[in-house]
């Protein structure tokens, strides 16, 4: 069963890859070349990875505590109840609730000196997703939309970008075209809902309805045409294309063998990671999976085991599964959060917001494993060395994903933007 599934989907993927890879090379040759030439001047730039990279972005919403996960400070009062454990990398310790990830630290690049200035969730999450500070006048595109904008979709029918979580606070395509908006999936166990036409409704009748709606709508659209209406027109097109597609199956994780499903953990996040793998395998370029409930202002040590455990099981299963399928070398896995949590434990036995230093993790395509980059000070309060800004971090992602991080793009208001926010890539973690 597993064998059959694996083979057929790999087959499908290979043929698709070959085709799309070729198209991408021809279409993007110029930009990629530009980047290489541009960055060859000055510091030695890491080479863009060969191949067509997918990105799975795991977003820890609410601010993940660095001391309790990837940057423990054993022996310090600040450490609280979370113990430190050995990882596979000599001398590197993680928190006790990520034993599985500790066991595969040779595949991870841990960045321990992430630093930002905003301690507000909304602004912090926005910065992490877009590389830019929130403005009143314009919405910046998220990294996934940039990726699609530059590299295009890989599958004709499937969306290029899927978000497992809440779309409301997501900047989505920002000022880029609405077609680059992520498709939100609320519950990975249910996948994409309402995709089955009622039994009585033939394909022909369905088309008829669409044509009728379109005709009746023409006066309205003529009067009120603009970006809002255009975005809805686009979504109607995307939804219609998706409905008729055999690829829809990739949204259905019940098609996975039970053994695989349970490996990811029976949590929305875990099953979301599994869905992400399935989608990437089927040709979706970017998937973001959210895990919330990190905003532990109270009783943090009661809340940690569950949430960190969910992360550990889901992310470890994802990395293993991708490795086993030979997909990890072409899939960049990012673990990010908006900021860290205070080393000091507050009077409600919680930790508060702490933008000064925090941890993020990279793995997979273009990334060197077994690396710890940067360090926080002995209390986990400030960066001690090699501080990494969000722009540096996202620029590193851009390099690993083969995106032209030095190229200037213009927003509709004429302002220039760079993918990753114009930071410096962390050469130390790039292959």
């Amino acid at each position, binding site marked *: 069963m597993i064998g059959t599934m694996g083979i057929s989907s790999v087959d499908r993927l290979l043929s698709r890859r070959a085709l799309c890879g070729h198209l991408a090379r021809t279409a993007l040759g110029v930009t990629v070349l530009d980047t290489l030439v541009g960055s060859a001047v000055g510091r030695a730039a890491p080479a863009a990875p060969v191949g067509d990279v997918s990105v799975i972005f795991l977003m820890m919403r609410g601010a993940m505590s660095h001391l309790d996960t990837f940057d423990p400070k054993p022996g310090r009062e600040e450490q609280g109840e979370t113990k430190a454990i050995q990882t596979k990398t000599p001398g590197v310790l993680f928190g006790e609730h990520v034993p599985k990830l500790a066991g595969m630290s040779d595949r991870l690049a841990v960045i321990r000196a992430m630093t930002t200035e905003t301690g507000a969730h909304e602004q912090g999450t926005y910065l992490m997703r877009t590389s830019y500070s929130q403005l009143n006048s314009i919405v910046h595109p998220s990294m996934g939309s940039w990726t699609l904008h530059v590299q295009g979709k890989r599958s004709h029918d499937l969306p290029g970008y899927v978000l497992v979580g809440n779309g409301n606070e997501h900047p989505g395509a920002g000022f880029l075209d609405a077609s680059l908006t992520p498709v939100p999936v609320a519950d990975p166990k249910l996948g994409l809902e309402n995709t089955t036409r009622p039994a009585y409704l033939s394909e022909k*009748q369905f088309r008829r309805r669409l044509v009728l709606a379109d005709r009746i709508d023409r006066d309205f659209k003529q009067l009120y045409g603009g970006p809002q209406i255009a975005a809805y027109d686009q979504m109607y097109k995307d939804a219609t294309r998706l409905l008729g597609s055999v690829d829809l199956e990739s949204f259905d994780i019940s098609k996975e063998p039970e053994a695989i499903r349970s490996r990811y953990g029976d949590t929305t996040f875990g099953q979301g990671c599994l869905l992400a793998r399935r989608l990437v395998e089927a040709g979706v370029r970017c998937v973001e999976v959210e895990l919330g409930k990190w905003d532990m202002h109270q009783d943090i040590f009661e809340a940690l085991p569950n949430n960190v455990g969910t992360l550990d099981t889901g992310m470890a299963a994802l990395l293993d599964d991708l490795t086993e399928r030979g997909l990890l070398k072409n899939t960049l896995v990012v673990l990010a959060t908006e900021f860290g949590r205070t080393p000091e434990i507050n009077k409600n036995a919680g930790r508060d917001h702490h933008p000064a230093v925090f941890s993020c993790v990279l793995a997979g395509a273009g990334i060197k494993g077994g690396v710890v980059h940067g360090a926080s000070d002995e209390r986990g309060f400030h960066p001690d060395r090699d501080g990494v800004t969000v722009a540096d971090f996202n620029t590193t992602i851009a390099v690993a994903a083969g995106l032209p991080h030095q190229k200037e793009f213009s927003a509709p208001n004429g302002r220039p933007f760079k993918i990753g926010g114009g930071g410096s890539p962390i050469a130390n973690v790039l292959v």
Partner: protein
Amino acid sequence: MNRNLLRRASSSTTVAVALGVAATVLAPCLAAPPKAAKKAQSQQQRQRAGLPAAVTADPPSTIMEVAAVDRSRRSAVHQAAAQIDSLLASSWKAHGVEASVPLKDEQFLRRIYLDLGGRIPTYEEATRFLASKAETKRADLIDNLLESPDYVSHFYNYWADILRLLERPQKTLFFESYLWYVKDSIRTNKPFDGWAHEMLTADGRVWDNPAVGFQLRDAGMPLPYVDNTVRVLLGTQIGCAQCHDHPFDDWTQHQFYELAAFTSGTQMRGRGKNKNMMSRQMGQEGARELIQEAKQKLDRSTAFVQFVAANTTAVSFSEAPLKLPHDYQYEDTEPLAVVSPKVLWGEIPSGARDANGREQFASWVISRDNRQFARTIANRMWKKVMGVGLVEPVDDFQPGNPPSNPELLEHLTDEMLRLDFDLREFVRILVSTGTYQRRAVVYDPASGTPFRFAGPALRRMTAEQIWDSILTLVARNAWAVQRPTATEVAAAANLDLANPSFDAAYGMFERFTQKYTPPRRMRELQQTVGYRGQLLVRASEMPAPLPLGHFLRQFGQSDRETIEGARTVATVPQILTMFNGQITHSMLEKGSVIYDTVVAHTPQEAIDVIFLSVLSHKPSGEDRKLARDEITTADTPAAGYGNLIWALLNTREFIFIQ
């Protein structure tokens, strides 16, 4: 009608379930011999239950008593509206803007129902208004809507998004009473300054004084509370200054702490489930006894302990000093120094100078001398009606973000003060302006040019407006369920902690959980108003947050964790829901409003009925021809009706407010 059609109807396994086929039942009702139609219907009923009886029944004669609108003030309203129009007219002239064309009656009708009542008009409401020859028919409709339950429901949704209204913001905060209180404050049209003051200074438990919910919403987070309060009530963002001096604005971290010092003495007893906290802070013997007994007697005591803890959560105030953080980095003061309270601008009103810190803060916020309070709410209401604020975003007033029309904003601020913060009267004036009653204008905020209000901005309906509009096509009674009142909840949840009895308390806990705990309540309500997993009630009466996959969340309802977290952005799952979702199907069930309305008319009238029901206007000549062609060339005429309704629902015209 023909046998073929009937056979089709009765042999189908999903007869009348979904749009197309429901319409095949619809057709025999229109034309086939009644006996055969009956047979098809009874078979349909056997196969599955349709719409719940509570929803197809007539609505109750009184849904709620809403404060009456004063008709005698109508000419004053029109005068005030004319003043606003003349200010706009000079702005148009100055900026070379051409005013949008005045709305036709049918466009006005649809917009006013949506903007004041949160839903589209029914077929009856539409035909009645369009047929009326009364000169005052627009003003009459405005006044009627402003005193309708629809208005209360719609503005509840509006405030729920701003105030982050949730049933359980924390495990020991039971907020049903507070949510009802917000709805009731809208129902009674409480003046906004008094309402705000009440919430900022409320004491006691949520059962006794539901207004405490506003302070409890940020329980355990006294600094974010100040940030959120200033953002919501004074339209100013000082949040960054909580950690460091504001990068672009004038606010320093020191100022933030000075302001927070007013409310730092706010106590919330019993909060948190940490055992040490409980014994240390709760100080209530009765609760402790109950909890100890629960731990001995119950395998799983957590939910019960939370219930008891909710009963000990109460707001009170006694002055307590606020210290600067230990990592305070600026040279003006030492870290950990005690800060004395100071307002951001202006001064504490003389009448409150001897009062406690929290009262001083509240009095300053709502003072008539603090124009920023009036300005903020005036700008919010302007945006609510016109689609775009004079300052955008509405909670970011600062020198670097000036109003697009300062003169108008100051005039509206004066009006708000003149009306003594009567928000509904203020809205009444705004919707009476000629500007509001012009065709919507497409505006792209990313264009970088300010909006000049040649008419209101084109908007997609909010999630709640879409839901409540579809419900209008389905439910004769959309009010079969309302959220519980504070009295009702208090009676069910208020423990007698002076004479604690474990058995009595546990019995109460079980009854309360059964009836009010959100997932259980949802399941309970399925019995009365459930249709294929959906609750057919007004959006305002549903618990929050709804599951992420719910229709309302798909269309952008807030998770109520961030202030104004609702969105109106297009996504693919929304379209799939419009195509194939249960709620789309519900409207062609027998007993739905649109089904019954179409059936009550002749086939010749049906096309007009469908257009008026869904889009609130008759079809143009060309559209009528398109519709007729569809019906005559579809597999069956009935399928044609189904296709037509489906098609109208899936137009941009349906979900955008023109």
